[in-house]
């Protein structure tokens, strides 16, 4: 029994960072650790349903995505509004290529983009987070979100259009170029 747990523990060790990133980026915020724990426990319970021919990573990440969405639903019931996760914005990465001023500007732009993204409708936010923030392919995004691949493509296009509309003035000022 301990050996089996060790084997599963290795899978947890291998995928915990990816799972945690997905939980944070799909909106779990400060509950991301609990979400990931729940997801791994459910994954272990559900390993029998894991089909040959199915990649493990997207299967696990789909469980994480579902747990994150369940969290949102329970929050709505409990609080009547969505709790967004601006507080999870990472401060430590210098995106200014060594230029401190550029790094500050870049961070502020990213913070605004993150806030705008959190304000989009759920499906738009989920598909953009998967496709661009997590850099998943259309196929991986379809598996993680449980959508048809065609839906991923069309929803991505609509979500980008909506984001462009929200960012319009900033784009024209060249803030993200």
């Amino acid at each position, binding site marked *: *029994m301990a*050996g*089996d*747990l*060790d*084997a*599963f*523990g*290795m*899978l*947890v*060790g*291998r*995928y*915990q*960072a990816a*799972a*945690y*990133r997905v939980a*944070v*980026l799909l909106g779990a915020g400060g509950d991301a*650790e609990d979400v*990931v*724990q729940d997801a*791994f*426990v459910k994954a*272990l*319970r*559900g*390993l*029998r349903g*894991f*089909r*040959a*021919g*199915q*990649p*493990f*990573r997207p299967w696990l990440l789909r469980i994480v995505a579902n747990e994150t969405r369940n969290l949102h639903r329970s929050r709505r019931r409990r609080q009547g509004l969505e709790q967004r996760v601006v507080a999870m*914005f*990472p401060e*430590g*990465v210098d*995106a200014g290529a060594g230029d401190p001023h550029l790094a500050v500007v*870049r961070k502020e732009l*990213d913070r605004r*983009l*993150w806030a705008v*993204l959190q304000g989009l409708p759920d499906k738009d936010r989920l598909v953009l987070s998967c496709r*661009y*923030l997590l*850099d998943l392919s259309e196929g991986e995004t379809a598996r993680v979100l449980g959508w048809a691949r065609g839906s991923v493509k069309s929803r991505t296009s609509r979500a*980008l*259009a909506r*984001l*462009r509309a929200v*960012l319009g003035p900033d*784009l024209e000022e060249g803030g*993200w*170029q």
Partner: protein
Amino acid sequence: MTRRDDHVVEEALRALGRRFAELDAPPGLAAAVRRRVEAEQVRPGRRLRVTRPVALIAAAAAIMVVALGGVLVLGRSVLQPDAGYGASALPQQRAVTLEQARAMVPIASRVPPEWGPPDRVVVGDGDRPGVMVLSYTVGGRQVVLEESVPGALQIGLHGETRVVGNHLATWLPGVHEERYLDATGAFYTRKFQASRLVWIADGITFALQADVGFDELAALARQVSG
């Protein structure tokens, strides 16, 4: 809106995603998962079906089938070519210094100081290496110490379990194959010409290889992690 605007928005989102690339799971998450699973196992009326060995083996086999497909798609052979120390090479293997290996592989590497500097150090797995291999000459014999991130080496379901020092180790005698999982989730298989002893300590999976018997290999292992 123009195609240029599309590109700007997409690039801005990707740049935002890179901010999160270094975001790691909180320390202790894996241990917390294990505690919860163990707690469920002892709760009356509640059983985790997959902890039965046959279920876990079936799941592992399913994962392996996927992985072998992935290897083919990626153009990797299932068995990596020989690395020159009685083992198949790591995918995209390259020689580095010990310091470089320690900077690349996210583990707190340790090596026995009495062995002196390694003769050769290699890492694999492209730009996200999870395994480092250090070759030594100890007492006139070639000894190969492999250190990897948890989960890279899939040892859970085969070999003989032995006690070595303060650890439970897996003894893999003679010529054998072992399966690995790389950072992309793809499996690959390596063939070993000599016995290996594998154990986990302090968040590192150690594998020690030498053309000696169990007792001598266990003595060397104790020099690595007590």
